[in-house]
């Protein structure tokens, strides 16, 4: 995996656990000098404003440390609900699955492409 960090969230997290994840992740990025972080949330069945804020914080913090965060595998029901709730995950880039997320990170790394975008493979 080289410079990338893969984090899989297996259960719906308690707030304290989510906060721990945030600080652990920041420390690990720092220690390993990681350039990319993939957060697999395919097992997460709900994102409320608290969890959304944690994901946003991770994205912002990793960016400051020169790493790019990609959230992968968001369930469609979760995505739709987030929009209706009014929560925009600012700065959080998302991809369909781990593989696509990895492609996205590699592309960003080698092209030095720092633009924020959402990876869209809806035509494939």
């Amino acid at each position, binding site marked *: 995996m080289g410079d990338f960090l893969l984090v899989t969230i297996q259960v*719906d997290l308690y*707030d304290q656990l989510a906060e721990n994840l945030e600080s652990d992740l920041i420390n690990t990025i720092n220690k390993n000098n990681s350039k990319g972080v993939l957060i697999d949330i395919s097992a997460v069945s*709900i994102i*409320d*404003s608290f969890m959304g804020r944690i994901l946003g914080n991770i994205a912002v913090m990793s960016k400051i440390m020169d790493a790019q965060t990609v959230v992968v595998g968001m369930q469609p*029901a979760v995505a*739709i*609900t987030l929009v*209706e*709730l009014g929560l925009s995950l600012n700065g959080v880039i998302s991809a369909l699955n781990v593989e696509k997320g990895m492609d996205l990170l590699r592309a960003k790394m080698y092209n030095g492409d720092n633009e924020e975008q959402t990876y869209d493979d809806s035509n494939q």
Partner: protein
Amino acid sequence: MTTATSKEELLIVKEQDVVPLRNRVKEYGVKIGMSILNQTKLITATSELVRNLLKYGGGGKVIIESVSNGRDQGVRVTFIDNGPGIKDISLAMKDGYSTGKSLGLGLPGTKRLVNEFDIQTELGNGTTVTIIKWKNG
């Protein structure tokens, strides 16, 4: 008319009570065959309101009910706290209004996610928020 068929009450006093409550509400949705999308909306709304109950209301209780109106089945969740109440409800219902340095999404966002939303509050006496998500709503 909306009638309740089954009902239970949960005491909410700490952050660790949030996930079990969400799971219980989900079970009520599953029991009546609610779609994953409607379950997700209901649980997300529950999560936002229980956070408000803890953060601003100082804890309280939550009642979960299976309800029916003759045409459809649904889940009703009532959040009751004895906190300070809300001074200006119309302000609190606005997107972006927060006294907690937060996003101010909880109340207006929750209203968008459910089919019925009611809020009663009295300064010094607490706040009660009631939501219903219909199975086919």
